[in-house]
């Protein structure tokens, strides 16, 4: 990324880093407009847009009526007409009413108009579980978007990445979905450069290096993978943890490089099991690197059931370090 060690940094949570990125984007490009439900006066239910309306005005940062198809559809029109819309969907599960605009149009404009039009829109949405949200507030719909031609999918796992990836997304000429793990909003803090910088889309991050097993994750599952990796390391198992950062474009090169080295792969996501993005990663490896595989590709995922609205057992749904550690032992013992 363009940030140099010399630059000023500040300790930020992920939500603070996102707020910082949005402010810099509004400062830098007058075409940037931010809108959604409760993003204005209130600053968003998670405070991601806190203070932005006061600072940049109600024309640049504004509340919309309560209708997601309207939000995304309007954003498409704004993008077609030369603005840089940044829409907030209050929770990823509330993207569903807008999926017609997304699947039928958002990703198709450049293609159907042969690049006469394109939609430089960013759609931000908190996703995932682990914080006892109400029913339908903990969904992880990234696989649906990854299967939609013409849209990019970004999911950060650290404040530093969140800021740089979000700024890269706002510079991108094409639609980008930016999913933010609710669990990470305030639980992680780190030193984040205060200046404007971007982290390129399409480059995975090697979180920790290891020779025995590759654990692939993104967003809220990266810390889970790390904890399991630390435990395994204590038993002398070298675990390489990859943070994909972006699902589309997918950094296949980094994945294959690691698999060539370890020959053992575990993929961790909290989405429902059948046809989640974990399956795409596994299929890519099974097609490109079969000869280096020394064990089955194990998927540690959510279940083929809705994320439970029953608080006392919801944590059972999300993959945890114990399950990942078990998978590590399994592939090592194979």
């Amino acid at each position: 990324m363009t940030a140099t060690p010399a630059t000023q940094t500040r300790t930020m949570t992920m939500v603070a880093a996102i707020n910082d990125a949005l402010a810099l984007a509004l400062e830098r490009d007058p075409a940037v407009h931010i809108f959604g439900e409760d993003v204005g006066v209130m600053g968003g239910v998670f405070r991601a847009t806190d203070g932005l309306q006061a600072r940049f005005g109600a024309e640049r940062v504004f509340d919309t009526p309560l209708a997601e198809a309207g939000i995304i559809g309007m954003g498409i029109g704004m993008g077609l007409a030369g603005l840089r819309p940044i829409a907030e969907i209050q929770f990823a599960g509330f993207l569903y009413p807008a999926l017609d605009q997304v699947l039928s149009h958002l990703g198709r404009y450049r293609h159907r108009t042969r690049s006469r039009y394109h939609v430089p829109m960013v759609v931000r949405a908190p996703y995932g579980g682990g914080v006892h949200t109400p029913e339908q507030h903990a969904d992880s719909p990234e696989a649906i978007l990854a299967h939609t031609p013409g849209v990019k999918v970004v999911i950060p796992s650290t404040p530093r990445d969140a800021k740089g990836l979000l700024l890269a997304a706002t510079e991108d000429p094409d639609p980008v979905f930016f999913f933010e793990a609710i669990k990470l909003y305030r639980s992680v803090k780190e030193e984040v450069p205060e200046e404007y910088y971007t982290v390129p889309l399409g480059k995975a991050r090697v979180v920790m290096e290891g020779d025995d097993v590759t654990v692939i994750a993104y967003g809220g599952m990266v810390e889970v993978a790390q904890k399991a990796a630390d435990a395994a390391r204590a038993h002398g198992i070298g675990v390489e943890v990859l943070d994909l950062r972006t699902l589309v474009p997918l950094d296949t090169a980094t994945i294959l490089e690691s698999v060539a080295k370890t020959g053992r792969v575990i993929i961790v996501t909290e989405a429902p099991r059948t046809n989640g993005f974990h399956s795409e990663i596994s299929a890519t490896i099974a097609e490109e690197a079969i000869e280096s595989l020394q064990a089955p590709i194990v998927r540690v995922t959510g279940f083929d059931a809705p994320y439970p609205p029953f608080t006392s057992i919801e944590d059972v749904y999300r993959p945890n370090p114990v399950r990942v550690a078990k998978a590590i032992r399994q592939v090592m013992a194979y």
Partner: protein
Amino acid sequence: MSKTKAPKTAPTPSSDEPFQLITPEGTVSQPERLPDVPTRLKLYRLMRRARHFDERAWVLYRTGRMGVFPPYGGMEASQVGTAAALTHADWLFPTYRDTGAALTYGLPLEQTIAYWRTSPHGWAMPQHLKILPFYIPIATQYPQAVGAALAEKRQGTRNVAMAYIGDGGSSEGDFHEALNFAGALNAPCVFILQNNGWAISVPTRTQTRATNLSLRAQGYGIPGVRVDGNDVLATYQVTLEAVNRARNGEGPTLIETVTYRVKPHTVADDPSRYRSDADTAGWDAKDPVRRLRTHLLSEGHLTEKEDAEITREIEAEFEAALQVADRFPEPTPAEIVDHVFAEPTPQLVRQRAQLLAEEQA
């Protein structure tokens, strides 16, 4: 497909002035249309009961004995007056805001408490009722209510379906599609639109340029009524008329109850971030419970002593239910994969086994 005959009772041309039966001061404006005294007393007790639940929920939340709860205190007339017009043979589709309506319809207290504790016991609705768990996604209940209403019609009953929505929810496409389907298919549906002035932090004037949401009914050729949402006698009266039209095959009605969210969005919300006391000023004076109480006391239908007795009974009933709710067993981990299909897929069978193995370990 089924020809829709025009409604026999002409659509009430919905005026901007909400229909009202008693003023905030408790004086009667249209004596001839007042429900009889027993009904008034019943509605009063139901409002007191709903208010008590709302108040206790706050206290229990603070002591960790209740989950995050969306209060409705101040909106009792809007919820009780409408839900009281139903029987258990009718359908109720409530939103997270409508605990007062659910209790009025007949959802047992202990189960309502269990729901807000996110215990599965709060979700398995009783067999003898036709009520769905509170809807969290906005507006989706509206088209579903049309389907339930149409099913009753196809099965030859006189039962109706009632669905609730908020001013914010009325901006969603499902609101529009539902009203149009109900009109086109002449479904026995009653749509309650509770305009409480706010959608979390967004005031109704930002939500829409319209100042009278009941006018939307005209766009579907169905009756639209605007009623004082803090006057339980008025909400009960107009809802009863709408329910009867529906039972008589005259189709759906949209009822806008004009009320106010004096409380925060949820017990975890801080309204000072987006509104001032000036915004909420005046609404306490319109309190629906006090309004009916003043009326009943002044007309001599209720004595202070009887009122105190009602209080005692309501409190006792709630505490008894709370104890039942406290004894509901916690769900087991494997339950997260139960009840997905009548017959679990091989994949789910395996996932359940994995969860049981984890429990053993």
